[in-house]
């Protein structure tokens, strides 16, 4: 085995890390969640704002305040890029695709159509200890969105502990 550092730290990832997109907390929002990676303490506070008819909502905004490593910060930035402006269904489909990529241990060829800059994270899946980092923001987004859809918008603090 060789530690393929450059496959982990793709230039795109470092770019997003240095200049995160959509960072900062904004109004309006229907749900705000706070997620923590208990192993390392990385944190994210994330808000989701949906618009549209029940059953046909669009992700109008995702805003966040994150503290964490390059991977977790860049993943949140890429996630915001990917989901803002999408139908909720489509956004959750992207979440699912990203989750599968992360759990693939390098065996899945990511679909650039679906994940765009997210394909840069393919290398992360070969570093089990970093998968949680890449998923922190995505899990927060999923949680916040599900909370709104379930009509139980509130501030929750679950943990990511796999």
């Amino acid at each position, binding site marked *: 085995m060789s530690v393929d550092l450059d496959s982990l730290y793709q230039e795109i990832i470092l770019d997003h890390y240095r200049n995160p997109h959509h960072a900062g907390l904004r109004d309006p929002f229907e749900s705000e969640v706070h997620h*923590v990676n*208990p192993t390392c*303490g990385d944190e994210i506070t994330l808000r989701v704002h949906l618009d549209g008819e029940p059953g046909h909502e669009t992700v109008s905004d995702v805003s966040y305040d994150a503290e964490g490593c390059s991977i977790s910060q860049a993943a949140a930035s890429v996630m915001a890029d990917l989901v803002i402006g999408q139908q909720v269904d489509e956004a959750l489909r992207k979440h699912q695709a990203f989750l599968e990529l992360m759990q693939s241990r390098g065996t899945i060829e990511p679909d650039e159509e679906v994940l765009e800059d997210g394909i840069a994270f393919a290398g992360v899946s070969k570093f089990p*200890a970093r998968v949680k980092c890449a998923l922190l923001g995505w899990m927060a987004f999923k949680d916040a969105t599900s909370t709104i859809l379930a009509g139980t918008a509130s501030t929750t603090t679950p*943990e990511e*502990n796999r």
Partner: protein
Amino acid sequence: MTATGSSTLPGLLPDLEVIRKDFPILSRRLADDRPLVYLDSANTSQKPQCVIDAMVDHLERHNANVARAMHQLGAESSEAFEAARDKVAAFLNAPSRDEVIFTKNASEALNLVANTLAWARGPLEVAEGDRVVITQMEHHSNIVPWQLLTQRTGADLRWFGLTDDGQLDLSDIDELITERTKVVSLTWVSNMLGTINPVAEIARRAHEVGAIVVVDASQAAPQLPVDVQASGADVVVFTGHKVTGPTGIGVLWGKRELLDQLPPFLGGGEMIETVTMERSTYAGIPHKFEAGTPPIVEAVGLGAAVDYLGAIGLDNIHRHEQAITGYLLEGLATVPGVTVLGPLDPTLRGGAVSFEVDGVHPHDVSQLLDSFGIAVRAGHHCAKPAHKRFGVQSSTRASSYLYTTPAEVDAFVEGIIATQKYFKVA
């Protein structure tokens, strides 16, 4: 000893001699150059080479702390540790790996349940006026935690009695399992009487009144296929050292809905989500119940152990145990002055046989057998109430396992006869 004495016994494991070679200790010579005849497996099982090797390999090549260490050794160690959880989940047919909690032994697992039920708030809480039901054949580890719980909370402790042939006396089940009953905790297989209990049936009755069912599978897991879903239980516990794994590790399986609702047990590293000086929030299962550095190398050993048992097949092991136990019961039946406690039908029981020898105290029986190289247990086997039920203070117990041969049983029966001669009672 050539261990093929009665290898025609139906049900014996076909590769018994090969299996025995897996266990280094079985070639030990004892005092006076006697070969070891190990009939104390209900106390603790012997360990196959593959379990020892897995532990050594981990310690020599992959040792690191888990979860928190992100370097290569840390990743290897975490992977090995979590793979052990997967293996145990498969061994138990658990619906989810997250429902498998590693404890230090079966006793801790039972205390975990008893304590968190006392600390729970809401419907799970066991409080004054509530009832906990156990049985008279429990190991002390499934009695004392419930005594402590009921003493501390003011709840009521009740129990199923035993019939003369060592079965659970279910005649008063309707008086015992009532609307007040919050917990029913019982052993699957008795470590003293060998009795196999109708766990699923009792679970069904307990669930009718909304009680939680805790099953102590410490003696079942080594010798029966344990399917936690089929068992009907809400919690099943067992201990590593009796399933050819190491000491220092036990297992608690519980239904997610239950475990999610229980408060934490021990506090510390690994079980937290976030900590401030004022307050903490806790991780999800399984980590919520695993405070501190877990038994890492022990989990690796246990994973290898359940793989080993799985490769041989629990059905095959069960058949082997029944065959050996039947042969042992037949052997004892030929010796006047020997009384077996518990069911006499080998199909109704596990491979632990407790008995009395008229006129010879169990200590003295075991001492004599030991002088012949035969290891059995004498005493109350951590089941004082069951002994009291049968009017005896202690007994001698011979317990077989997948490596036990008919020839060893022959040696044991001859040993009993020689003991009677030595003490001039026959």
